[in-house]
């Protein structure tokens, strides 16, 4: 009863204050987020979410861990179609075209209209804002952005008589160095491979994009209507993957994304190509001296930019949108971007986050964290088109069939190109 009376009192006072209250209209937010890396990400997200809720007692927010990236997108889209969308979600940056086509998100630039808001939106690295923009509007705010980097076991490098401070820079060096790193047992079975590039599924397609970038091409353009599979760069990239297996540097056949960090920590491979988002996991669990370098490149350094952005959904009230925007601002503030980057290894998406004292201390303790940031100028956006899931599957099928030995690179890429064009021609 006591509680009731207090809240009645508050309501009366609120009514008397009138207009002053309207601006802090309460909103109940539902926030979907994925976890794509081995990190204590859920706990960190929940801590940050609770901190926002504590600062904004008039609102509530429910953080819903919705699985990996693909599952989270599926859940958010299904919920939106059922008329009950989350107000805010972290989804793949490359899903922007799907979300626009399904008409479930609002441009953040339509909500964040004040001068202060605009300054906020331009405080992020331009490379991360590029794939958040479509037809002149900003639809997303960068949050957990990453590029893959080359992790290597320095102890293994020393063992093989290699310089532990100079990881391979080119594909040729990768093969040469990789051969020296392979260890076999008495029966001739490999107990440690030279390197490990995930080649299966979406993770495989992501890294493949990096190989193509390093050969001076891209898999897709900003329009979302062009897939570039049948190119010399893509063919060279497939040839490189085949060569790694043929020269005995990498395990033949498909390599899964999920097992890769574990294989590296268990010394099953002397090096791996994986997201910088795994930095915290490796740093906590590695029982050997390890380093991080740029991805070895074909004609020069090159990497894909990946990861997730914040989106605000349609089918929400103005109060909910305002609250969601405030929530995003909180989550991406320099302080919290630093907290998130340190907890996971994701690249803090704005320069001022790197100036925070805890971030500076972190970089000093773990200089490997800087590599992804330094690699950013050489990185291009990840493969993104309309009907992304379907068209990416054509690329995934091409990569997997070539590595399984059931198709030739040129033929597989040409077939994928034909299918992709068939789907995308409707959008041109």
């Amino acid at each position, binding site marked *: 009863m006591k509680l009731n009376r207090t809240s009645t009192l508050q309501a009366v006072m609120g009514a008397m204050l009138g207009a002053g209250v309207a601006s802090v209209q309460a909103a109940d937010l539902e926030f979907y987020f994925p976890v794509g890396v081995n990190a204590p990400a859920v706990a960190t997200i929940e801590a940050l979410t609770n901190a926002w809720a504590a600062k904004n007692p008039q609102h509530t927010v429910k953080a819903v861990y919705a699985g990996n990236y*693909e599952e989270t997108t*599926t859940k958010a*889209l*299904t919920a939106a179609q059922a008329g009950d969308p989350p107000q805010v979600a972290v989804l793949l940056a490359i899903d922007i075209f*799907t979300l*626009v*086509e*399904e*008409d479930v998100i609002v441009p953040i630039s339509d909500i964040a209209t004040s001068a202060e808001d605009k300054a906020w939106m331009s405080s992020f690295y331009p490379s991360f804002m590029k794939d958040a923009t479509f037809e002149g509007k900003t639809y997303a705010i960068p949050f957990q952005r990453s590029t893959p980097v080359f992790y290597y076991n320095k102890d293994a490098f020393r063992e093989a008589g290699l310089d532990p401070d100079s990881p391979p820079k080119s594909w040729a060096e990768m093969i040469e160095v990789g051969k020296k790193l392979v260890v076999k*047992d008495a*029966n001739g*079975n*490999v*107990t440690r491979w030279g390197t490990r590039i995930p080649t*299966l*599924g979406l993770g495989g397609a992501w890294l493949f994009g990096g190989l193509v970038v390093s050969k001076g091409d891209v898999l897709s353009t900003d329009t979302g209507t062009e897939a570039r599979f049948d190119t010399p760069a893509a063919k060279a990239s497939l040839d490189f993957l085949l060569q790694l297996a043929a020269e005995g540097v990498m*395990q*033949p*056949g*498909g*390599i*899964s994304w*999920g*097992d890769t960090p*574990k*294989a590296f920590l*268990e010394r*099953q491979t002397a090096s791996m190509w994986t997201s910088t988002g795994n930095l915290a996991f490796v740093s906590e669990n590695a029982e050997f001296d390890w380093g991080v370098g740029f991805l070895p490149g074909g004609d020069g350094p090159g990497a894909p930019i990946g990861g997730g952005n914040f989106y605000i959904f349609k089918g929400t009230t103005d109060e909910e949108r305002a609250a969601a925007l405030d929530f995003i601002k909180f989550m991406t503030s320099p302080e919290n971007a630093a907290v998130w980057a340190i907890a996971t290894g994701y690249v803090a998406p704005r320069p001022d986050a790197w100036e925070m004292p805890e971030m500076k201390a972190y970089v000093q303790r773990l200089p490997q964290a800087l590599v992804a940031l330094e690699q950013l100028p050489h990185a291009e956006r990840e493969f993104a088109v*309309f*009907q992304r*899931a*379907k068209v990416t*599957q054509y690329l*995934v*099928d091409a990569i*997997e*069939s070539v*590595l*399984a030995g*059931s198709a030739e690179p040129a033929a597989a890429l040409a077939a994928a190109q034909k299918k992709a064009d068939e789907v995308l021609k*409707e*959008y041109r």
Partner: protein
Amino acid sequence: MNKRLSLGMAFVLLVLPSSLLVAFTHYPAVRALANSLWNNATSRRPSRFVGLDNYAALLEDEKLLQVLINSGLYALGTIPLAIVLAIGMALLVNSRLPATSLMRLSFFMPTMLPMVAVANIWLFFYAPGIGLASQILSSMGLPSVNFLGSTETSLVSMMVVAVWKEAGLFMIFYLAALQTVPVHLKEAARLEGAGSVRVFLDVVLPLLRPTTIFVAVNALINAFRLVDHIIVMTRGGPNNSSALLLYYIYEVTFGHRDFAYGATLTVLMVVILGALAAFQYRVLDRRTHYQ
């Protein structure tokens, strides 16, 4: 006790379950059939009636062909093996060996676990280099096999998981059936000089036939229905070598968000399952002795 129900009560009892059936079985089925005749509309592509175009696409879908072959192999590989193993385990725990209750528990354990948990356990078994399977192989001096990452082994690896999970459940049905086999029939056979193999083949096995039909139908349904482990372990890969029909439907519908083609595939699956069920009941039922 034989009091007649009032008409109103009967109506209520009929309407409640049938409305559930209509809402969750009939309406979606009809809706899927209707959806399969339209294109996949989005905000950038207007909706339009396409007639049988989606069905024509089925014929040209190479991936569907592979998925159907996979599903066929998967059913052929898992169902007989699960049934044989289930009968073997049931015989074992039905015998007077020591520690049968411990055996029953351990055989039944995999069935009690959710499929997602099972898949995660097997993910560790199969992990190349570090998993249990690789450790066993390397202790025998064999090279480690990339079970889930190569096209030759991924489907077989999935079958092993399914058999491991299913056989325990079927064992329970066989165990129940074995305990109802009349002892006098077996004794009569033994008096006639039949050995235990002969008793099993000519007396016990025919009496198990109704159970076998029940189990076979269930196993077939499960072979098409259970794809959780595919989603967790391989996502149909590599190169679609472990994709099953229901997984493909899920991928097309919710992954690619192509609801029209997903509905078309669903109709295909319903037709296939209906035909298989009709065949099973016709052929097997005719030769079955129910007590």
